[in-house]
């Protein structure tokens, strides 16, 4: 059936939470009411990336992109746009007065600077329909590989493309495949790391939700390259939509003969099964992931032997991350030179970042390697809200570090971030403004690592706990002379002697904040002062006698009766009783109460 209009509704986790599924249901009802259900087709897609503005609804052929669509807006879209052909300008994202609405987004910075390779199908196709993937050249790369290329040629293409692992460490993908291809073994495995665990990172989830077939196709290509016939996707159980779409995709691919025996009539057989992770962060570490697939407690094991030689069930295994896989079909189809032409000398292609924190446009963006931090924050992210000053950006999640404002013109690639004491990680990009306390931030990330340490080796199990305890004391005004040195000593030795990457990188948030913001640590320890005004124990709430009108509202709002005074005379706060909850500041109509660092 041919439709005159297609309505794409984002079905990613963010938009689903803001009722995009109800929007689809209501829209279909209204289409029937208006007797145009045979003219307009509503499709739920994967994530568009701009979760901040969701739910997103795009109407084709006009290409009108509506943002923050509510159930109340649906009627208007149906009646005005779909029935009468009049664009609902008030809901348009971007230039509301653009002559050609499809171009309205062109000048929207968030989209303008993006190059979408890994995310090419997200928000464009219905992830639960294999035909739509195929229509977008899906499985053509697999066909090409199986019918026109030898495994060695595939590995050569991967090596020449310069693709490096998108899961964190940035190991060259082609090299990894070559090791596994050369390893001797009657049985080999291809694994996909979909155990995305960095706080705030959700690129893998978006790809799985928006374009699951690209991962399946790339895994089959990898299987052909290394000589494996079985794949496992290790995906977190906390991603129910992604898990479901993977299940649907695997069933469809099997039905179409794109997974299973003798794919494309060749001798190559390959199948994929899912394994659900139970939520341990460490299971994103490759050896722990494989141990978990084997049905054991998810704990890392020492390397060597590396998984390429002895991985899953001691057989040669490759493990790549979801985003890495999502690049591969395009590299095969467009050639390694095309891919290598994007990015910087040692970091080719693009990287997806989850942009969050104190920034206007939070969401998912895919940028060419080499884009500067400034471009990310101001051109794509739309700058810092409330006119605040940019202070630092945290990349790489709990294994990463904080990059200060004076390094804002650094081009983002693997090596630059490492040199600055941070890392690419899986692509977390958390922006911080002047109101952020860097000691508190270090403590936040360390708390995560302490919680997620598997407990196998003492440097991580006890060392991170001890570092956390020191940071906790410092933020509570109990820091002592020597604490910084103690942190440095622990950090250095945990880095050098922990068993796995999780432990070895756990001190990074401390090391990078010490490197760039040592003065803040010193202020906390020696002056008992939190310069950013965040650490509660170091703050004092005071009432400005000149501004206080004596209305008594703050005293009535105070939950611990710490405020007293006579009506119409200035009130005062008993610091001994005050729990620094901030209720008084919120209640004061005269701006008379403030926090003193």
């Amino acid at each position, binding site marked *: 059936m041919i439709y005159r209009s297609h309505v794409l509704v984002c079905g990613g986790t963010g938009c689903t939470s803001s009722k995009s599924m109800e929007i689809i249901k209501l829209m279909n009802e209204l289409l029937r009411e208006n007797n145009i259900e045979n003219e307009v087709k509503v499709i739920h897609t994967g994530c568009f990336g701009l979760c901040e503005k969701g739910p997103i609804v795009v109407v084709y052929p006009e290409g009108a992109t509506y943002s923050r669509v509510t159930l109340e807006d649906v009627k208007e879209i149906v009646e005005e746009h779909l029935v009468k052909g009049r664009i609902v300008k008030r809901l348009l994202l971007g230039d509301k007065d653009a002559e050609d609405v499809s171009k309205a987004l062109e000048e929207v910075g968030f989209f303008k600077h993006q190059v979408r390779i890994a995310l090419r199908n997200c928000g464009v196709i219905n992830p639960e329909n294999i035909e739509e993937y195929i229509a977008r050249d899906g499985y053509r790369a697999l066909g090409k590989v199986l019918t026109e290329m030898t495994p060695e040629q595939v590995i050569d293409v991967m090596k020449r493309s310069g693709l490096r692992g998108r899961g964190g460490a940035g190991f060259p993908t082609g090299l990894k495949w070559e090791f596994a291809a050369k390893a001797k073994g009657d049985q080999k495995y291809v694994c996909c790391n979909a155990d995305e665990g960095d706080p705030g990172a959700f690129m893998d989830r978006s790809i799985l939700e928006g374009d699951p077939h690209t991962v399946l196709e790339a895994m089959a290509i990898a299987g052909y390259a290394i000589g494996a016939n079985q794949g496992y996707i290790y995906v977190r159980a906390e991603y129910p939509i992604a898990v479901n779409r993977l299940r649907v995709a695997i069933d469809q691919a099997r039905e179409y003969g794109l997974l299973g025996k003798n794919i494309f009539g060749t001798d190559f057989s390959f199948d994929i099964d899912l394994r659900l992770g139970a939520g*341990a962060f*460490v299971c994103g570490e490759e050896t722990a992931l494989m141990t978990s697939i084997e049905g054991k*407690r998810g*704990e890392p*094991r*020492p390397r*060597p*032997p590396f998984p390429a030689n002895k991985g899953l069930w001691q057989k040669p295994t490759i493990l790549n991350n979801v985003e890495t896989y999502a690049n591969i079909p395009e590299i095969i189809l467009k050639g390694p030179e095309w891919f290598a032409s994007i990015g910087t000398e040692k970091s080719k292609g693009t990287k997806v970042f989850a942009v969050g924190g104190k920034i206007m446009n939070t969401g998912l963006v895919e940028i060419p390697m080499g884009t500067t931090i400034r471009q990310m924050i101001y051109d794509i992210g739309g700058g810092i809200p409330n006119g605040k000053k940019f202070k630092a950006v945290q990349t790489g999640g709990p294994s990463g570090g904080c990059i200060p404002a004076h390094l804002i013109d650094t081009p983002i690639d693997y090596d630059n971030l490492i040199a600055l004491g941070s890392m690419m990680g899986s692509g977390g990009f958390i922006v911080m403004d002047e109101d952020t306390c860097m000691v508190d931030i270090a403590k936040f990330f360390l708390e995560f690592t*302490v*919680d*997620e*340490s*598997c*407990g*196998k*080796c*003492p*440097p991580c*199990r*006890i*060392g*991170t*706990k*001890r570092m956390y*305890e020191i940071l906790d004391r410092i933020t509570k005004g109990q820091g002592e002379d020597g604490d910084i040195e*103690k942190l440095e*000593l*622990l950090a250095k*030795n945990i*880095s*050098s*002697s*922990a*068993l796995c990457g999780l432990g*070895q990188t756990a001190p990074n948030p401390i090391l990078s904040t010490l490197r760039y913001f040592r003065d803040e640590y010193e202020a906390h320890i020696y002056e008992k002062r939190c310069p950013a005004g965040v650490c509660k124990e170091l703050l004092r709430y005071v009432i400005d006698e000149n501004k206080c009108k004596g209305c008594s509202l703050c005293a009535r709002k105070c939950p611990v009766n710490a405020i007293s005074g006579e009506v119409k005379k200035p009130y005062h706060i008993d610091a001994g009783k005050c729990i620094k909850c901030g209720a008084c500041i919120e209640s004061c109509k005269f701006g008379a109460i403030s926090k003193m660092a």
Partner: protein
Amino acid sequence: MSEMVTLTIDGREVKAPVGSTVLEAARIAGIKIPTLCYLKDINEIGACRMCVVDVGARSLQAACVYPVSEGLKVVTNSPKVREARKVTLELILSNHDRKCLTCVRSENCELQKLAKELNVGDIRFEGQNNHLPIDDLSPSIVRDPNKCVLCRRCVSVCKNIQTVAAIDANERGFDTVIASPFNMALNDTPCVNCGQCINVCPVGALREKDNIDVVWDALSNPDLHVVVQTAPAVRVAIGEEFGLPIGTRCTGKMVAALKKLGFDKVFDTDTAADLTIMEEGTELIERIKNGGKLPLITSCSPGWIKFCEHNYPDLLDNLSSCKSPQNMFGAVLKSYYAKKMGIDPSKIFVVSVMPCTAKKFEIQRPELAATGYPDVDACITTRELARMIKEAGIDFNSLPDENFDDPMGEASGAGVIFGATGGVMEAALRTVVDILSGKDNDNIEYKEVRGVEGIKVAEVQVPGGMTIRAAVAHGLGNARKLLEQVRNGEEQYHFIEIMACPGGCVNGGGQPIQPASVRNTVDIRAERAKAIYSEDEALTIRKSHKNPRVMKIYEEYLEKPGSHKAHELLHTHYHSRENYPDECSRI
């Protein structure tokens, strides 16, 4: 000879076999690298990070698991390496219940030794300590998680060697704790009480349930006739507690020490071992002759019995109905001996000294009370006996040798070799072959069932008669392998000996604890077994049915092996056990 590679350790060229680790190569070169979690063949997981070395990689590597390669350059003793080890050790100590003065492992603690060797002074990283409940509900094993260093040796030995898997890591991060599933009390799990976990523990996190006070109380009670029996494996190991070399026979000194401690009689469990052979041999011959259930499987090892009740309830009928020597002896003491000596059995207090923690569980079995009183009243391990001797101020090493008391102090060499894997089998064969062939055979050493090979098989030709197919397994993992073959009908045997502990009783869970530094280079099982076999060789009577004391017991009291009376006193029964019962204690 295997292929060799050349590597450099601390500037010295070292040749090491392909597939060996840096730790092993360093040992070849005489370079010592400290270790904590590593225990050869049992726990090689690179977890504790004490053995880190610099191989030029981004981070330091654990020598115990890092493979050697041609041209590898290793530094074991740089400031960076030393600092990393020391910081890690201080971190471990910062969450360790450092009650060293009163710890059962004081002076035999691998952590204490490391702290000294690495010159740890003040612990720079004090912080929160775990205060977790102690599990002392088991009659055999006490777990103190506050002393645990999470080296996982106990987990490995329980899971991989014994295939019991009663304990593993629970929780994660700083809260990680070695515990039973769902924090069940060990006593309510399929734990077989073998105590191998205690033997591998580098610290005092695992220990035997101490019954010393019960024994002191009995000894000081003038109304009681306190009798002690000692198992064969005790005499070849107790010397280690007093600094003697592994494998020193201390039978005479041990007897002398027990007499000094005040026991009214000091008897030898070996006498009961001879009794066991008479009963079990008879049972085997009867089963063979009458088409009874085969293979017959030995029942001396209480760890094995519980393992069978949990995991192979379908094989319970294959188990010999014989009680273990410990309990046979107890039953005989409270019946035959009591009558002979004119002592009321209620006044006889039987103490057993065992190389075993499972024996502590065994004496509590309600069915093991043939006379109406428990066969055995208190069971202590070799380690506990050593502590008693020390507490009493006895200078063990200077004691003159003394002999076991009459009338139950004499045993054959067959009874002695019960202490090593294959010993029960060999002892049984010595008697069974004589009985079946009707003559006194000279060839009595069945060497094919000796040694530390996991599963040993022998085909024994009875002169002028049948061929007996026999198999021996020690360590429950090996037992499981053997029993699976039997269950699947892949192999058929007449007689199987199973000992729960690897190496048999000489390596029982109650034996002196040798640290990893010793176990990594010496096979203590083989060394102690040598002493056992030398004691056998030194004896003139080496067959159970030639032991005049045993013959006298039959003559005077039990009539003949397998008699009604013998069954009442010396035999027992078994029942299947639920692995993880709904109703259980939680720790």
